[in-house]
């Protein structure tokens, strides 16, 4: 555990040092992963389904403000669909426009939650999101989460309809909409993810020790049980082995995110009570786990040379050999020949050396 905290500390210091460069790199990576996932899921247009296209789009999105990634992703998806069906591309464009005017325009940050659901689903790990939102956000995060689920299932239905049809007509629109409204997996995912998010939120807000960790693990369990239950009764064809592996990895990932975000030391909990003119306070203070890695730097201090140079009563001309003998005898007689080691942080040692200069 302390090793993880040390790694966290190192990463935080590294990020603070190179924040400007790292922000650009991380934005580029996030954009690249988004376009890569889109090509993986949809990938109709052969001109867009190349790594260099993903790189170019990612590079361009870094130049513009952060919110422009959502716009580029919407355009990317529409261009893919336009290659196979003009009607569906038009309908998808209007669908995204409605989404923007109704929701994303007022809460732009939730646009990333909406975007992350299809991206995570394309990598087979959508279960990360409900647990992560339960830990980091309010229950209102269910709204963008649900919109993300709907967008993903809509795109999946577009892919399945386009793959099986031979002509581009308005019937494709009818088929996609009917399939989306009749998609059992969509409703089950919406219900299960909403329940998990709310459950995790209430557990992590409770006044018990290790509430965050308990919330993450119990959220994973609840997600598993509900989806298996639904799979049994509603027959939605989940690959159980892959599902278990993905769920375990999702829980581990969220736990790691939580460790980096906030690590608490429940051994040092303090319960306090005090009052002022207006209120009586019941306070529970949980200290954070902060650890600074001691960079051990061993320096040896030997005092007998110092004693010899300052002994004015002796006028001795010595050779190196005599010097050594004197040093040895000095160590035996006066106990000045001592060695000790000092362990200090690099920062302290540098400060001391600067002052000495």
């Amino acid at each position: 555990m302390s090793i993880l905290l040390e790694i966290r500390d190192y990463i935080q210091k590294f990020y603070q040092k190179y924040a400007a460069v790292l922000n650009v790199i991380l934005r580029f990576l996030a954009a690249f992963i988004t376009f890569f996932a889109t090509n993986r899921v949809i990938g109709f247009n052969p001109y867009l389904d190349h790594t260099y296209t993903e790189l170019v789009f990612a590079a361009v999105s870094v130049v513009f403000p952060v919110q422009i990634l959502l716009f580029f992703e919407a355009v990317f998806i529409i261009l893919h669909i336009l290659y196979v069906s003009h009607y569906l591309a038009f309908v998808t464009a209007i669908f995204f426009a409605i989404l923007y005017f109704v929701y994303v325009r007022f809460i732009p940050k939730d646009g990333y939650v909406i975007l992350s659901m299809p991206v995570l689903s394309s990598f087979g790990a959508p279960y990360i999101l409900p647990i992560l939102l339960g830990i980091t956000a309010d229950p209102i995060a269910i709204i963008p989460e649900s919109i993300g689920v709907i967008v993903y299932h809509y795109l999946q239905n577009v892919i399945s309809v386009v793959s099986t049809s031979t002509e581009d007509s308005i019937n494709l629109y009818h088929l996609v909409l009917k399939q989306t409204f009749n998609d059992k997996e969509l409703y089950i995912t919406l219900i299960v993810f909403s329940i998990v998010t709310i459950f995790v939120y209430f557990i992590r807000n409770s006044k018990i020790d290790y509430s965050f960790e308990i919330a993450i693990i119990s959220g994973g369990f609840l997600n598993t049980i509900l989806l298996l239950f639904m799979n049994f009764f509603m027959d939605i064809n989940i690959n159980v082995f892959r599902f278990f592996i993905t769920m375990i990895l999702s829980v581990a990932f969220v736990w790691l995110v939580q460790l980096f975000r906030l690590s608490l030391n429940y051994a040092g909990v303090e319960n306090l009570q005090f009052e002022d003119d207006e209120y009586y306070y019941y306070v529970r203070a949980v200290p954070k786990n902060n650890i600074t890695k001691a960079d051990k730097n061993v320096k040896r201090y030997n005092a007998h040379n110092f004693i010899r140079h300052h002994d004015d009563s002796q006028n001795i001309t010595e050779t190196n050999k005599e010097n050594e003998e004197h040093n040895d005898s000095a160590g035996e007689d006066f106990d000045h020949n001592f060695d000790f080691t000092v362990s200090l942080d690099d920062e302290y040692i540098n400060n001391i050396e600067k002052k000495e200069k």
Partner: protein
Amino acid sequence: MVNEDKVRIMTAMAREEKKYGSEITENMQFFKKDYVRSHVLAVLWSYTIAYLLLFFLIIFYNINYILLNFVVIDYLTVGMVMLFSYALLFFLCVLISRIHYLEKYENEHRILEEYYDNVLKLKKIYAEDGKETEDVNTAGN
């Protein structure tokens, strides 16, 4: 010699500026009524456009039926349904957005008051250091 109080105040101000940005100072240039009305109007415009787009999607979905039964469709009923649904949407938009932006204005006003308190404290410190010659007790200066 670094003045710790000054650094503390400036750090708090920088933190507020970074968190809220220039949006909060821009918003506070408005009176409460103007602020709320402008934002409610923006919400109404967005939802009106979204409603029209949704209506267009519905028409597009039923285009075959509409073209085949163009003459026999009861346009009055369709119009009434559209009107009432839009009126309901209008009412809900105004109600919810008004409550939301009123609360937001109060919140931002409180944050900005704390920010300006810090500005005045900083001005006093500068005056004590001999770097400020204006009367720092003038309110709003």
